């Protein structure tokens, strides 16, 4: 069952800041079907090429560090077993789309933090009553997002519209909605633009790739509903 087979792992490498243009590098190694793609990368780093750059930490799908494109799908290398891939001729690994590449499989995800920065302004949560059970349950649906970036990488609106914040940011926003009512107006202004929630064209890719199984599209729709219901939207449109 667990016998070793030869795997060809092909990695999209490069380092724009150092002027190294993207190129493909192929590695061959023996792997068992129960092993994770991450095990392959760690073996490469240990035995074949110590310079290959990728991120990893928990190795168990919790922290979101090792999101990458594996045979065209954004997913976590530590949650993808060799046998999950069928029997492809090669395993092709690329950095996530939609984020600047730093080196090899490492991308810069810091842009996603902007949302949290905007909505959790100082004072937001001061003197605020703790959220209710129902609110908390909804918040948790989004809070299990570990900001791996897979959804952003799969979202066509995110590639097409560089103003759109991307689904991951909206998930972060959804998570804190119950806490930010005191600041509603300011937040609504931020949201009610093509750059934010209306950038999403409800194409469901995000939900298919989310390793935390968050119903990303549904949560974004709830943000839209929230906006529509809120009178402030009409007001803003009148102005």
């Amino acid at each position, binding site marked *: 069952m667990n016998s070793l087979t030869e795997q060809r792992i092909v990695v999209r490498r490069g*380092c724009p*800041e*150092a002027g190294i243009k993207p190129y493909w590098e192929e590695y061959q190694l023996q792997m068992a079907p*129960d092993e994770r793609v991450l095990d392959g990368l*760690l073996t490469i*780093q*240990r*035995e*074949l090429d*110590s*310079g290959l*750059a990728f*991120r*990893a*930490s*928990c*190795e*168990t*799908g*919790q*922290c*979101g*560090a090792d999101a990458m494109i594996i045979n065209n799908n954004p997913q976590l290398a530590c*949650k993808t*077993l060799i046998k999950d891939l069928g029997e492809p001729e090669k395993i092709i690994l690329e950095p996530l789309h939609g984020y600047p590449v*730093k*080196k*090899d499989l*490492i991308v810069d*995800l810091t842009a996603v*933090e902007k949302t*949290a*920065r905007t909505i*959790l*302004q*100082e004072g937001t*949560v001061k003197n*605020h009553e*703790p*959220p*209710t*059970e129902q609110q*908390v*349950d909804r*918040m*948790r649906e989004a*809070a*299990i*997002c*570990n*900001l791996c970036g897979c959804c952003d990488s799969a979202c066509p609106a995110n590639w097409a519209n560089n103003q759109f914040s991307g689904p991951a940011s909206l998930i*972060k926003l959804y*998570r*804190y909605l*119950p*806490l930010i009512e005191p600041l509603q107006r300011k937040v609504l202004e931020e949201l009610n633009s093509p750059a934010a929630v209306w950038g999403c064209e409800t194409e469901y890719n995000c939900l298919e790739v989310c390793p935390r*199984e968050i119903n990303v599209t549904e949560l974004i729709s709830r943000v839209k509903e929230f906006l529509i219901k809120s009178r402030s939207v009409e007001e803003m449109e009148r102005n």
Partner: protein
Amino acid sequence: MKTRINNHDILIVGGGATGLRAALAATNKAAVDVGIISKVPILRSPTAAARGGIAAVLNRTSQDSPKNHAADTVRAGAGLSDVKAVNQLCQRIPEEINWLARRGLPFTHENNNIAQRPFAGHKKSSGKPAQRSCFAGDRTGQLLLHTLYDHCLNQPIKFYEETPAVQLIRYKERIRGVIGWDIAAGEPLIFLADNTLLATGGAGQLYEFTTNPLPSTGDGQALAVEAGYPLKDPEFFQFHPTALARSGILITGAARSAGGILRNKHQQRFMQQYDPENLDTAERDRISQAITSEIAAGRGDTADNCVWLDLTGLSEKFIRQQLPEVYTTCRDYLKINPARQQIPVKPAAHYWMGGLPTNLAGQVLNRQKQPVPGLWAAGETACLSIHGANRLGTNSLAETLVMGKTSGEKMVGRTSHTELPTKDLENQLQTALKKLCFSNTATNKVDCWRQQLQTAFGKQMGIVREAEGLNGLLAEIDQLTRKVEKQKTDSLQADRRYRFDLIRLLELKNMLRLGRLAGRAALARQESRGSHYRADHPEQNDIRYQAHSIIGTAAQQNKIFYDRVKTE
């Protein structure tokens, strides 16, 4: 000097729950400027892997109070817990939970209140399981980490991610910051601060079979030892009884508290033999030792050396709601449904009770038990002796929060007036950089040596230890250390951006340093206590060893000093 210097009032090394909580406490208390440096991006910190929950008594009743929580913690600590530190933890943690809830950590609720579930070793006055664990499914750590981080973003806190600390900066008996390495740029960075907090987490990567994430290599502890400060109780490592047999992925203890049963290959509930009172919710050291005995007696699985965790008494709905990560872990990695099939599990290294000795405020103590000016430690890095010889589940996250907050506040307002001469700094920088020098041909060897260390450590410093094996381990560590040192060359490599092999080398050196001290302390402690079990000395010996091992100042590597626990 060419190297960039960053000045902060407070420098925090490590961005797990401890480091972030400390930063928020400091900036909340006063207008201070805080820098946090982290080896991995903040959100990938090992705290993200924590599952089961955070212990706190939220509702005092005649049956449960912080006093009961403290009594349980001390009992589990097998004579090595510090009662004052434990009381401080148990009294302060309820307030932390409410603070987090108000900031948007969506704890699982029940009847409009934060739900609490039982966890092994936590008991009411009546002896029945106490419900103290506050949780968010079984993804408590990830939600905690993100909540803290989101709130840090608008504070005067500067983050330096993927920037490991390489060496402490010391001047005139005072710690003045650290020398770090910017992984992205491939250059050193100097951080100067009046106060430096080490919050780099544990060192479970010393073991081959571990639940600990890759960054847990004990860097903070090793840097302090290198600077001349001791380690306390390094022989005490906790093994979690239920990690998946092949990968070491953790199945949270909450699964046993909810009714999970451990079985051997004859389907016997073997805990009936080992601890008929507490059964599958006995403390971790007892269960791990029981599983090891079952496997040794041939009653485990022969190929994978494991026993089984049986959750088939729980409904699929319950598992999916309360233990979602158990469900998806079994489904994704084993392709089984835990509500229908039993899970192959065995013990894995999980938590390091030992660490840097500190006082109740979080100041690191030197061998004379005096605070080292400018140096602090908290969380898994520190050994405040809350957990003693064995930690109760859910008490560690509690410690990260309470001690993060306490040390963060206490660091405010302590300034240093000594100027650090540039020449001195330049010399320290050069010594630090030497640690990252090695020849190109050696790069691939580093990870192989790391594996060798992990294998040897797992074998000899595991659940069962004895003198001969420990001596062998120490010899192997010496040999590996010599090999690593021989590889030294004088210059850094040319291609330095994102060279993780440089970091692996640094980690290996740190782990060798700590592994040697832990091995020596384990060899010297000729008794069994808590997580430390010596086959050649199976009895607990309070007369000689109800004491903390203090080991490892640079000058006296081998000498162990026993600091007796005061018993009231």
